[in-house]
Each structure stands twice: as C-alpha cells, then as structure tokens.
C-alpha cells in the first residue's frame, strides 16, 4: 500500500504565544510535531509493518525549514520525505493546495491509496486541511478516526458521532484524519535517529501557491485570567448561579 502522511509543526503547549505590534510573535517558541500528526505517522508505520511492500511518504508544507520535523517522522519509520517550501501559507486552503499539488505531481499515474493526517493542528485548530485536501484530490474523506483496520482492498475504521461510535468500511483511495486514541506513538532512540539520516528528504519549492481565501485582519491577546469569586458554601454558589440565570426557573 502506498501511504502519504501530511504533518506539520506547532508551538509546544508549554510555550507562551504573545502578540507584539499586532502580530503573533513566534520567535521565542519551541516547536514540536503536531501531536495529532504523531498518531497519523504511527498508524502509517503500523500499516506498513502489517502489509508487506507498503511505502510511507511524509510531507510537510512549510514556510521555513521542516527538515527536523521530517527527520522525526523518518525515525519513527517513514521511508522518505518531502519538504514543500511555500512562499505563503496563510490559511488551510493554501496549505491543502500545496499538499494536493505535491501529491498529484508525485503520484501522477495513480493517487496514493491512503492519505493520513492529524485531526487538526494545535495552533490554528481549524481541522480543515484533511477534508479540504480530499475535496481537492477528488477523493473521499473520513475522520477523525479512533481505530483503523486495513487490508489491501478495504479499510475499516471507527469514528465518534453525536450518538456514539460508528464503525464503517471504505475503499481506497481515501483521506483519513487521526484522532487521539488511535494508537500510542512510538518513542525513537539513537539507532532510529541515525537510520533516519540515511533516508531521503527532497525539497520542492512552491513559489506561487494559489491565493489564500482568508485574510488575517488582526490578532489580540486574550487573558484566560478571571476574577474568581469564592463562595463560602454550596448554597451561596447555587444562589449566584440563580442570579446569573444558570438555573432554570422553579416549577409551579
């Protein structure tokens, strides 16, 4: 099976995002692989181990170097990587466009069987790229999935809905997004990191991605800090909630 995994890097949750002069200041952040993408890479590598002859290709669309990120995915077991350097990546549409362009180019004869993505990126949290990519590639999408079991011809997966877990079947090709719970990503040791150095990373420069469909107008920092009013007991708290209209009116 030919599998493509699309990954990105995000600021570590512990690092504080600040706004300087009306722009987000990303200069003092530490970056990590988007945690949902780790589930996607792990699942791809497990499928490869299960289905002999499979190949896992990782791709990242990025404005700056994505080589460290790609090396991590290679150390986890991916076979080869593409760094898609784009002059602009302002919205999900541009990111999905760059990824779909690269997939179409690399797989001109036949699309990959499976394209795996994380559910969403931790930074922008739109959860849009995976399905958008499917729309652009003209193939089906499903996600976020909590279980995948695949054979050469068919794939079964589970996903959460409002009414519980849904178990479904689909044929290839397919874009799937990974939810927490899908697997536990493996840790990589020195040996894997050394082996990853021998694996190929190819850089493709995208000088003119299609224009973004969303224009950023401005950013303002938000403080989650609230002024907590401590109630002395549960009765006082219930009274405060009643005052705020949180408790439905008493029945006659």
């Amino acid at each position, binding site marked *: 099976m030919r599998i493509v995994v699309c990954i990105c890097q995000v600021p570590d*949750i*512990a690092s504080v*995002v600040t706004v300087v002069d009306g722009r987000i200041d990303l200069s003092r952040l530490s970056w990590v692989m988007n945690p*949902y993408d780790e589930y996607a890479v792990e699942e791809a590598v497990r499928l490869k181990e299960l289905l002999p002859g499979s190949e896992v290709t990782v791709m990242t669309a990025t404005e700056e170097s994505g080589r460290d990120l790609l090396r991590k995915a290679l150390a986890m077991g991916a076979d080869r990587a593409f760094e898609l350097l784009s002059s602009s990546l302002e*919205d999900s*549409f541009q990111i999905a466009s760059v990824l779909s362009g690269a997939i179409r180019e690399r797989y001109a004869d036949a699309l990959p069987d499976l394209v795996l993505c994380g559910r969403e990126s*931790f*930074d*922008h*949290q*739109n*959860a*849009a790229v995976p*399905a*958008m990519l*499917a*729309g*652009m590639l*003209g193939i*089906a*999408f*499903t*996600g976020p999935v909590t279980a995948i079991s695949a054979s050469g011809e068919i794939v*079964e997966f589970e996903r*959460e*809905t*409002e*009414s*519980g*877990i*849904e*178990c*479904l*079947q689909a*044929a290839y090709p397919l874009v799937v997004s990974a939810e*927490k719970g899908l697997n536990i990503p493996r840790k990589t040791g020195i040996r894997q990191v050394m082996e990853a150095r021998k694996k190929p990373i190819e850089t493709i420069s995208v000088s003119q991605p299609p224009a973004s*469909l*969303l*224009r*950023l*107008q*401005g*950013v303002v*920092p*938000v403080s*989650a*800090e*609230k*002024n*907590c009013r401590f*109630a002395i007991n*549960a*009765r006082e*708290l*219930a009274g*405060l909630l009643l005052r705020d209209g*949180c*408790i439905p009116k*008493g*029945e006659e």
Partner: protein
Amino acid sequence: MGQYYLVYLELRNGAIAKSSIDVWNRFQELAACIDDRMYGFAAGPAAEGAFDVLQGNGTIYHAAGSRSGSASDVAVCAMLEELACRHGVTGIALASTAMGRRLAPLLSGRLRAALLSGCREFGGPDEACSRFIHSGSVIASYMPASAITVFLQGRELVSPDFCAAERPQIEVFDAAPYLDAGIDVLFRPVMHSSQGRDIAEASVIVAGGRGMGSPEAFGLLEELAALFGGSVGASRSAVDEGWRPHGEQIGQTGKRVAPDLYIACGISGALQHLAGIAAARIVVAVNSDPDAPIFGAADYGIVGDVRIVLPELIAAVRDLLTKK
C-alpha cells in the same frame, strides 16, 4: 445585490438537529434584506412534519431517497454544490456537528470557498469573523476573500431567537444521480453503538478530573448535570485513568466546548484543559487545593472536597428548582 444562503439541515432519526435549526434561524436573521434569499437542503428520511420547526421564507430541498447521516459525505457535498450553483448561492452554512465538520472543509476544497469556523462574532459571509487560535490565548479575525463562503457554526455563537409567521416551501430533490457518482466510495455502517448527548453541543457541562478519586464518584456529576439538563465531561487524567470514555474528554486533545455553564470538579486546570474551555461563558470550579490554576480561569469557586461539596450543591440546586 442580495445574499443567497444555503443551509444544510441535518436529519437525525427523522428530525432536524437542534443545531441545524439554530443555523437556519441565524441566516434567516441575516437574510433580512428584500433581495436576500434562503435555501435549505436535507438528505435522508424525515418524519411527518419534520420541517414544521423551520420558520421564515425560503425553499427547502429534501432528498428523501438518499440514505441518512453517514451514508456518503461526497454525495451530500455534490448535491449541495448543485444547489449552490443552481441558485448562485453566496454563503453555505452548516452546524458544527461530526458530519458538519467533515462536510464543510470538503465543500470548501471542492468549491474553492473560504471556510469560516469557530466564529465568536459573525455578521455575514462578507464580514470578518473572529475566533480563538493558539489554545485560546489569541483571538484572530479573518476576512473571507472568495465568491462563496462556507460557514461552520458552533456553540461559540449564542443561538438567535427568530420568529416569523411564514413557513418555507418544501421541494423534493432527486438524489438518484448523485448516489452513484464515480468517486463516491461506499461507506457501509457496520455498527452503531451507545448513545448520549455530545458534550460539544451541551449548554451545561459538569466535568470531573483526577480529584474525583474514582469512576463511581462521577455519579455525583451525572446527578448534578441532570438537574441542569446538561452533560458530563472529563479531564484528560480522568480519561487516561479509564474512568470515562475519550468522547467525553475536554481540552487540547479532546473536545473544545462552549457551554453557558461549565462546572469543573476536581480538575486542577492544566493549560491543556483550559484550552478546551476558552469559549465557556460561566466557569465554576470546585477543588480542594485553593492554589489550583482552575480558580484563575473561574468566575466562581468553592474550596473543598468534591465528595462533600457536590452533594450539598446538588441539594441546593434542587431546592431552587422546586421552589415555588
């Protein structure tokens, strides 16, 4: 020129989902100008009178023949695209349900339409939308720049009160040509289990963390949530302990919620958890540690053991509910 809106109306067990009705109402309010038009689209079997809950002008297309829900997102997308093209629609709106969250970006990719989601304020498809990014630490505003805008409405927006004497017209939409479209792979539902309300749609959430001490203690949360007609949620540690299913997890790796009232019990308030409740309106914290970070994000707090405070709170709320 007027705005033409198309609202996707999700059918669940033959009835239109409450969140879809909210979207319909919001766009009815937006479509107040004489030149504006409203269209609706629903796929799947509908109960007798299912559309009576919708008020205002407009035309609703109903593809009764297509299988409902999870049958095929691609087919539903193709039908929405056909209606959008037929009527020159400028905005397509969906509720942020599991299905809506799949359809909206799929449509956006196919139509090259800007996608607005998680908006806290919304004036229409040609106005800026502001939303949380970076775990709720920044609000960014975006302006759509495409002929069609796809709008995914979540609970971040307060449901509008919309009333009208008119009723939309219902028309039959023939789904047959779309059901076996070339790329439409078969999604065969194999199993459908459990039930209960999705916490992402709940207006009141009572959530528990490691401080609850045991899975049995969540019974208190169930009891309190029931008084409010709300749902039970959990922190990551409670889910990792195996006390609650992942579907109930709130936070960075779980769901982001936007209830009117959020009651956090025995939850310390790690950054990852706070990222999931940035859009909650009133936050109440019950924790035995007065220095727990959750109090910094709460409107009201009680310092104390949840096993003592919760039964008292349940009794106090019950008193208020039954008071004449």
